[in-house]
């Protein structure tokens, strides 16, 4: 059985897929333990937790000290000593006293450590992290080498983001792991990953909820091209889906590029819990009146207009005319945003989708589908997704080493491209299986990049260097098809 949980701002949605689909909502106020009780103890459990992470980042209260080792090349202000060259050789060691002075002079909540070419040799970042351990626990220290891709400025920005949320991800991993040791996190690109990998790069969990809704909408409708309209409590998210997968884009953080790709989603600041005054407001104050809240919301406006959602009689405090105006205003705003995407059709997700999406579709002049279990489409998407993994390998025959996702190992020989691709394909399959992938999900391994060249010394071919990137792509697991 496949179980999926999506921890939202108000509720935790849970779905089970085992030939048939069942789904339920558990209020967050009841605690995550209750949600885990409902999730059961059997089968695979996958969890999307982007909402608490997004809220943490939106708060902007985490102060992060950044240790940069710019090394050779362009100069970056505030950097410290220590340099690795493009071959992965250490050409300048770190100055531990300098790092110690920097950390004492810049107290913060967490530390980000990023060195140029650390993906070719992580030893200096590891040494700097050891210095930081004198002042910070490991849950508050993030390093850049595990991000694996060349792009020092973007890696540094990603590491800052990671430093800010790593402790929260660690807390969630401990909380969930105490109940289900084998659980998996749902990523922002629509795949699953282990808690251990998520702690190396917590940014991959960012904004995963829209990806979950889009994947769930695809699974529930079997449509491959559409715009998912996910009406949540706080926001309404629009997610383009092509070939059954949500489109992804580069994540930016604090105005800087990162190396992380997340689902491409347009988030409108209105949802079922948006407060209604003279008009609909882009903020919430807890639940709707119908679910025990203090202030009338969009949900209550629907009740005043004649629907029966929750304790619908509480909506009598709203004027009917204003309620209808608010609903029209909301539908107009979303329809305008939908039309800008020019989708072939839209698929409604979220608890209020059956009440609002048909009208949004009519105003946007697009066909629409609101599938069964639309209220928990996000949890369905989490349940049916599969383990995905990308392996970045840099082989250097002259130095007898290979660096795979930031880990350096010895290598006896560097063969031809076909041989190296076979080595990387076998390795990514081995790692994915160890992470809990279903064997049938590993039939296809994509080769995303392959570049190699001979190293010539004294007119003779001395060795080979090769960069290979292979991937078990995100998607729907074979177990759910």
């Amino acid at each position, binding site marked *: 059985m496949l179980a999926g949980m999506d921890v939202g701002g108000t509720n935790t949605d849970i779905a089970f897929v085992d030939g048939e689909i069942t789904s339920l909502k558990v209020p967050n106020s009841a605690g995550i333990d209750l949600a885990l009780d409902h999730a059961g103890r059997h089968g695979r459990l996958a969890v999307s937790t982007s909402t608490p992470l997004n809220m943490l980042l939106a708060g902007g209260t985490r102060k992060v000290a950044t240790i940069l080792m710019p090394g050779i090349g*362009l100069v970056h202000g505030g950097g410290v000593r220590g340099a690795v060259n493009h071959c992965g050789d250490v050409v300048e060691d770190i100055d531990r006293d300098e790092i110690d002075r920097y950390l004492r002079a810049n107290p913060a909540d967490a530390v980000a450590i990023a060195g140029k070419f650390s993906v070719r040799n992580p030893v200096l970042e590891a040494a700097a992290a050891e210095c930081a351990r004198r002042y910070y626990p490991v849950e508050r220290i993030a390093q850049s080498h595990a991000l694996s891709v060349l*792009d020092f400025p973007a890696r540094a920005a990603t590491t800052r983001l990671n430093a800010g949320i790593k402790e929260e991800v660690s807390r969630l991993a401990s909380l969930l792991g105490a109940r289900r040791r084998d659980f998996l996190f749902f990523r922002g690109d629509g795949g699953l990953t282990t808690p251990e990998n998520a702690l190396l790069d917590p940014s991959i969990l960012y904004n995963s909820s829209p990806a979950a809704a889009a994947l769930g909408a695809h699974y529930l409708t079997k449509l491959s091209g559409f715009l998912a309209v996910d009406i949540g409590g706080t926001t309404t998210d629009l997610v383009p889906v092509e070939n059954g997968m949500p489109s992804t884009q580069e994540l930016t953080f604090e105005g800087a*590029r990162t190396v992380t790709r997340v689902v491409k989603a347009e988030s409108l600041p209105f949802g079922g819990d948006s407060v209604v005054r003279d008009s609909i407001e882009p903020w919430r104050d807890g639940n709707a009146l119908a679910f025990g809240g203090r202030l009338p919301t969009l949900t209550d406006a629907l009740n005043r207009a004649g629907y029966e959602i929750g304790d619908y009689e509480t909506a009598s405090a709203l004027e009917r005319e204003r309620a209808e105006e608010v609903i029209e205003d909301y539908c107009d705003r979303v329809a305008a945003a939908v039309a800008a995407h020019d989708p072939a059709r839209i698929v409604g997700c979220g608890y209020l989708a059956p009440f609002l999406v048909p009208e949004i579709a009519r105003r946007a002049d697009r066909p629409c589908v609101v599938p069964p279990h639309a209220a928990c489409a996000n949890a369905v998407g989490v349940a049916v997704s599969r383990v995905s993994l990308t392996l970045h390998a840099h082989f250097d025959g002259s130095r007898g080493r290979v660096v795979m996702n930031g880990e350096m190992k010895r290598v006896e020989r560097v063969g031809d491209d076909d041989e190296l691709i076979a080595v990387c394909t076998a390795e990514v399959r081995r790692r994915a299986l160890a992470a809990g992938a279903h064997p049938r999900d590993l039939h296809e391994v994509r080769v995303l990049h392959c570049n190699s*060249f001979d190293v*010539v010394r004294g007119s003779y071919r001395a060795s080979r260097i090769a960069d290979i990137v292979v991937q078990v792509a995100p998607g729907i697991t074979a177990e759910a098809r």
Partner: protein
Amino acid sequence: MTTALVFGREFLLHEQSPSHPERRERLAYTIDQLEEEGLFHHNRVRVIPPIKATRGQVEVVHHRGYIAFLEEASGPGGSSTMTRWSRKACWILPSLQREAQSRQASPYGEGNSPTHSPSSGRRGTTHAPGPVQGSVT
């Protein structure tokens, strides 16, 4: 000021020979540094992908005879053409020799015609592998 960076992955396919200065190793190291510096995404760097040159554009900087030589060497059986001429210690096609001889003055200036060795000429010379000699059979 914006800096233009003309680059395409296909540049990595250019390798005369593993020991030639214009080899993949050197370009790959350069690209590694540019990628690590984030210059392909820098807001003051404009990456311009290469476009395929027209024959007329190529003829502005290369001698027609040299282009003909490359076309022959690149076509079916071209490798044998290259090998044959290399084995004879000749790196220039007879047609190119005739064309050069028919000209009173080299378009590249005295002492820098296509019949001179690569070491002395920078334009219009063939960079064929093997020993380079000035004689023409």
